[in-house]
């Protein structure tokens, strides 16, 4: 059931990804930066909020008037700031839920990733508390509706001896003291939100908390135009002696309020508590066995730290050497953090197929999909290839459906992530003429299942990041297809064109060296 929902959702999101990538480009695709946009909108709201606070007066009567003055007398700045503050907050809710839905549908919440998911849930509460608190401060007809309904809702809990709702019985009951408390909370709760956002990304290496500049500028421009065209307005001063039959609700923040009216506070508490609880335990529903985590082989580790630099979840650290080998450091894996993506294996200089089979144990490896086995599979798969444009496809198991490519002259091997494939394998396949070309099929840029895999692969092939693909490997014999599930139809086309190109290339001159011969690579042990 869960699988069906997730796979249907992935299809929908991937289609959208494709549309948005076509329009914004892969790099600035907003769907790849939802978390970063959440941070960004937080800052938009924080800056505009500080401006509003300068002019805001914290008593019930003065509050409404101070905001009215800002909106109308100072519409060109104060009014714009007010609108940005409102629309930015709404945008934050929108990207937060899209972000959550996306992480859920792509199943990016299991194993050690539970942490980000679990710490994401309270963020919803903080965002809502901040927003609802903010609407209250305007002290207009909407604020009055919110005040009465919120108080009644909270009163359902058995915490307060005196019902809070009695503070809002009628005009005579409202106190300025309560109002000052609310405006104080409107600084405190967002600060807690920021702290919680920071906690949320603690286990993520190189977390993207800033959207690309173009995207930031574009969204801000969109919100500015909206603010000028439809400025945020108040709905008349509050007066608790009367009540409105109709209120304009902000449906991003207040969708539960009509439900409280209809179903009663208890039901809505059950709904909120129940969904919160369900969200919290979702990473363990259903319980699945974890993939075995990366393991360090100390005799093969030289402490270079490349795995440490590449791990997307900071699961590898460097520790002082313990085995007497003449290196300063050794790699250490924290099994609590490792999601078994294999990216560290792809970055380890000792994970090279040029090493002899007998001692092909790299410094770090995945026990169930080790490098020796990958070398064997590579050699075996290529052995069966015939024809003029023999292609070995390494397909990431989370993205493009590479298996559909299998055909005479084409063979497909699956790897956990493209970045889990050491670049030396490409060298090995092409320079030993085991195939005429290598096609790498992985997630689309910006949507790597393991977050950083596509970036690392691109940089390693371009010679910008260790381990680099050696200069000698002709780049025209390599094709990289970055297209996840939204692009299944374009992959065969890419292969056809790639093979046409390979056919047109002059054959590689180098003779394949004898496998048993000592090659320079072996002496270095690395590429």
């Amino acid at each position, binding site marked *: 059931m869960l699988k069906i929902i997730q796979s249907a959702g992935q299809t929908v999101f991937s289609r959208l990804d494709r549309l*948005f990538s*076509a*329009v*914004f*480009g892969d790099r600035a695709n907003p769907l790849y930066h939802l978390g970063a946009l959440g941070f960004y909108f937080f800052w938009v709201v924080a800056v505009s909020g500080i401006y509003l606070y300068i002019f805001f007066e914290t008593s019930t009567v003065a509050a409404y008037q101070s905001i009215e003055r800002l909106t109308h007398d100072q519409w060109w700045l104060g009014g714009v700031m007010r609108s940005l503050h*409102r*629309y930015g907050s*709404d*945008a934050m809710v*929108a990207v937060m839920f899209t972000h959550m839905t996306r992480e859920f549908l792509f199943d990016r919440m299991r194993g050690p990733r539970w942490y980000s998911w679990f710490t994401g849930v309270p963020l919803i509460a903080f965002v809502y508390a901040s927003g609802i608190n903010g609407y209250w401060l305007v002290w207009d007809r909407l604020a009055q*509706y919110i005040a*009465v309904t919120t108080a*009644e809702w909270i*009163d359902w809990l058995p915490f307060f*001896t*005196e*019902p809070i*709702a*009695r503070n809002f*019985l*009628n005009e*005579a009951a409202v106190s300025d003291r309560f109002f000052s408390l609310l405006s104080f909370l409107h600084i405190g709760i967002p600060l807690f939100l920021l702290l919680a956002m920071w906690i949320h990304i603690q286990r993520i290496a190189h977390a993207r908390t800033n959207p690309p500049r173009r995207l930031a500028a*574009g*969204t801000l*421009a*969109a*919100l500015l*135009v*909206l603010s000028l*065209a*439809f400025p*945020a307005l108040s709905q008349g001063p509050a007066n*608790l*002696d*009367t*009540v*409105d*039959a*109709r*209120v*304009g*609700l*902000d*449906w*991003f923040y207040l969708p539960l*309020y*009509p439900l409280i*009216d209809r179903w009663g506070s208890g039901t809505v508490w059950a709904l909120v508590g129940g969904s919160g609880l369900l969200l919290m335990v979702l990473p363990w529903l259903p319980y699945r066995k974890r993939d075995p985590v990366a393991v360090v082989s100390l005799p093969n580790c030289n402490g270079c730290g490349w795995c440490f630099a590449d791990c997307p979840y900071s699961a590898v650290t460097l520790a002082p050497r313990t085995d007497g080998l003449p290196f300063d450091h050794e790699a250490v894996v924290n099994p609590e953090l490792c999601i078994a993506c294999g990216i560290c294996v792809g970055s380890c200089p000792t994970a090279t197929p040029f090493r002899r089979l007998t001692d092909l144990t790299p410094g770090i490896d995945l026990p169930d999909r080790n490098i020796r086995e990958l070398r064997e599979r590579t050699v075996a798969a290529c052995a069966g290839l015939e024809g003029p444009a023999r292609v070995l496809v390494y397909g990431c198991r989370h993205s493009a459906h590479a298996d559909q490519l299998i055909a005479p002259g084409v063979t497909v091997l699956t790897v956990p992530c493209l970045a889990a494939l050491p670049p030396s394998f490409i060298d090995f396949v092409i320079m030993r003429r085991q195939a005429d070309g290598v096609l790498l099929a992985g997630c689309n840029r910006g949507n790597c299942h393991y977050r950083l895999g596509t970036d690392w692969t691109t940089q390693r092939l371009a010679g910008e990041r260790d381990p680099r693909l050696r200069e000698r490997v002709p780049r025209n014999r390599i094709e990289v297809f970055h297209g996840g599930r939204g692009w299944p139809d374009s992959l065969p086309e890419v292969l056809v064109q790639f093979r046409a190109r390979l056919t047109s290339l002059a054959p590689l001159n180098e003779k394949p060296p004898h496998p048993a011969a000592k090659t320079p690579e072996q002496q270095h042990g690395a590429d």
Partner: protein
Amino acid sequence: MARVLRAIGQVLLYGAFAGVIGYFSVRPVYQAMAPDQALIKLSFSHAAQPVGACHQRTAEELARLPPNMRAPEVCPRERSPVTFELDLDGKTVVRAVLPPTGVARDGAARLYQRFPVQAGVHRVRVRLRDNVRDTGYTYTREGSINLVPGQVFVIDFNSRRGGFVFK
């Protein structure tokens, strides 16, 4: 050409984003109650009478107590539940027996309810008993009220101000 198409696409998508944000931040308007209704809010917090009578200690009882605890009168801490009824136009619409709050059951009994009624003239009759040892109602009040649409009519109770308060 592709550049132009992309630019148009961006304007459209940014526009859609702004449109969704702008629209749902105030629309659709929510109909909280019918336009020809008024609201009655019924709310009070009242500390009722103790459940039992106070008791004068006899000389022997006092002698048995340690010297610092020889208070001549003991009263039960627990308060009576508050029995409350509201009749609207001759029909009983609210009837509640409200227990005292607090672990020792010595706190105030609380009531908070609000309900919309048709605007116009209504007869209101409220009764309250706050002592289990009584049988009749300690406080009653009745009157005729004329509510305009959107008006909030508060029925409160304050024993120091003589009982029910209509506002």
